[in-house]
């Protein structure tokens, strides 16, 4: 029997297998940030050991950084101390750190691929669940906890049970105005916020193949939102073209040799998956969420569903979500007034997202009552947006760019949505309080966010922008 893409990469990294199913898995790339690493560094200190392979480790502070005035000292004391401690730890252990304000700074899952550090066939971990982003390159990439960060620091390995495999095939062509974000929100709405638990997903099919590298990252990024350990896409010419010439990518002959190896990274025709789903891209509309987990998504033209068929804790949780959002079953999403728009995060903070948003709002004006936070995923994205004149197009329409960071995706810094306000957000989680205590999050792609920003309500981007 053939092997899946996942099996090929995983098996090539098993140092040894333990009784009971755990493997000692070798890690090629370890990304770190300021929030989930301090206690791991402390653990090393208590053991009297140093990071084993600092050259395979890259740090960038992102979760807790301000997105304005990054040249000034960070105002909030605890945040400042955490950032200082991060930079000190990196220095002491000889780890490269893309410090706040430096040209390579940004959200960890944006800068890794951007710098060519993420490559096909690798194992990649980070103390962050959206590490699944890097799976877009055909890497086995997954989020880990702080104890596991310490394991990787100390040994460049991690102890993990091998997940099951799942393939999600999206056939056909997507319609106008349907973004990668809509594809993944649709998938999660179909299999639920826990449908992928225990599995590693391979995304396949024509609609996936047709995606650009950045769009593939958006899809893999949200694998965790259906509970999956990670998601991946077999590398192809789109992947090789993206990686080619980047800072840390192999260069010249080394690159050509690497591509020959990477071409072997696909699921064999006779490979068996533990679970398979197939969807048709033609059924996917621009999406929006109405509830408090990413599985509670519907087409933007649809109405809030009813509790029909739900019982027990399912029913309790459904009503808790609607009560939090102050929505009622049967209400149309279109026309609901919104207060905030957030463009950014490791899900939708790349240059193509900013281009898409800017081109959509060109010639329109931001609705007066809407506060919009446009946060590039990295300094490089910010610089590119300015080089292309997107900042001017946005300014003309009443928007301005902030500075890179995770920002309102998790509201750990000052970018918090006030209680009770509605935020159309291109981030990845609509959990209660995720964007600030009491904040109400509606997850969407950049086009639905753009339509909301200019109309001040939930609107269909295909109508608003004549797509």
């Amino acid at each position, binding site marked *: 029997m053939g092997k899946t893409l996942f099996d090929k990469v995983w098996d*090539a990294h098993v*140092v*040894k297998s333990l*009784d*009971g*199913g755990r493997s*000692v898995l*070798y890690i090629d790339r370890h990304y770190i940030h300021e*929030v*989930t690493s*301090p*206690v791991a560094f*402390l*653990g090393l200190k*208590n*053991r009297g*050991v140093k990071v084993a392979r600092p050259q395979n480790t890259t740090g960038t502070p992102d*979760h807790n950084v301000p997105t304005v005035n990054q040249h000034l000292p960070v105002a909030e004391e*605890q*945040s400042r*101390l*955490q950032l200082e*401690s991060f930079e000190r730890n990196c220095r002491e252990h000889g780890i490269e750190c893309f410090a706040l304000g430096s040209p390579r700074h940004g959200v960890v899952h944006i800068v890794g691929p951007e710098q060519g550090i993420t490559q096909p066939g*690798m194992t990649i971990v980070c103390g*962050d*669940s959206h590490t699944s982003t890097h799976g877009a390159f055909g890497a086995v990439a997954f*989020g*880990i*906890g702080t*104890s*596991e960060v*310490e*394991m990787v620091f*100390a*040994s460049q*390995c*991690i*102890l993990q049970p091998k*997940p099951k495999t799942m393939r999600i095939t999206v056939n056909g062509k997507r319609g106008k105005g349907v973004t990668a974000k809509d594809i993944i929100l649709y998938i999660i709405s179909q299999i639920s*916020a*826990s449908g992928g*638990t*225990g599995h590693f997903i391979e995304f396949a099919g024509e609609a996936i193949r047709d995606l650009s590298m950045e769009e593939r990252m958006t899809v893999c990024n949200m694998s*965790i939102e259906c*509970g999956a350990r990670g998601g991946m896409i077999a590398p192809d010419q789109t992947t090789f073209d993206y990686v080619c010439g980047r800072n840390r990518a192999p260069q010249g002959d080394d690159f050509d040799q690497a591509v020959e190896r990477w071409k072997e990274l696909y699921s064999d025709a006779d490979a068996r998956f533990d679970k398979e789903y197939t969807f048709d891209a033609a059924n996917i509309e621009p999406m929006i969420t109405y509830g408090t*987990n990413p599985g509670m998504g519907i087409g933007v033209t649809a109405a809030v569903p009813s509790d029909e068929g739900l019982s*027990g*804790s*399912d029913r*309790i*949780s459904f009503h808790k979500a609607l009560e939090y959002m102050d929505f009622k079953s049967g209400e149309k999403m279109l026309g609901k007034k919104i207060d905030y728009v957030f463009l950014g995060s490791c899900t939708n903070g790349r240059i193509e997202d900013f281009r898409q948003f800017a081109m959509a709002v060109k010639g329109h004006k931001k609705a007066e009552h809407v506060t919009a936070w446009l946060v590039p995923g990295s300094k490089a994205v910010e610089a590119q947006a300015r080089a292309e004149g997107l900042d001017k197009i946005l300014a003309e329409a009443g928007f301005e760019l902030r500075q890179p960071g995770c920002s309102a995706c*998790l*509201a*750990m810094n000052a970018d918090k949505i006030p*209680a009770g306000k509605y935020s159309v957000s291109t981030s990845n*989680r609509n*959990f209660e*309080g*995720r964007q600030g*205590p009491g904040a109400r999050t509606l997850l969407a792609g950049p086009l639905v966010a753009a339509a909301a920003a200019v109309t001040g309500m939930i609107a269909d981007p295909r109508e608003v922008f004549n797509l």
Partner: protein
Amino acid sequence: MSIPKFIKLTTTAVPLPIENVDTDQIIPARFLKAVERKGFGDNLFRDWRYDEQNVPVGSFPLNDSRFSGEILVAAKNFGCGSSREHAAWAIFDYGFRVVVSSFFADIFKNNALNNGLLPIQVSEEFLRKVFAAIEADPAARFEVDLQNQTLTILSTGEQTSFEIDGYKKECLLNGYDDVDYLMSIRPEIEAYESVHRA
């Protein structure tokens, strides 16, 4: 180094009959600014436990004086979302030693096991029995026996067995730490590195 040992426990339980409890609820991001592992229990379920004026919400189970104990019982998909290990630290620091659910998010499960907090996955049916036992008598006691991998509702005598990876079971029973193990096999890791092309 070691993790807290877990062998056997007899205690009451706190019910949280909510699905998809994500780690942002367990510990909101604004409490993740510490650089040490201390005091996270104070902010466990912060925004469910306290209202905007920081007044305890009486109806929330952790504030309900009828409920106490070292077992937290939650509905399915507990610990989903962010990988923050602070969630496991907060639950442990608050005083829980076991979380029972009909299933756990993968990262949370690993994080719990790495900190001496035992996640017990039971069937939907058994979970209903556990909730029912607490509802019938909030002082109902439960026994968790890791060696025999059983959870017993002492008031009714109903028992279920649970799965746990053999390696992690040994770690919990003995307080072993994964980092020590991985450092002990450094020669094998170096041998792997010498033939592996990143």
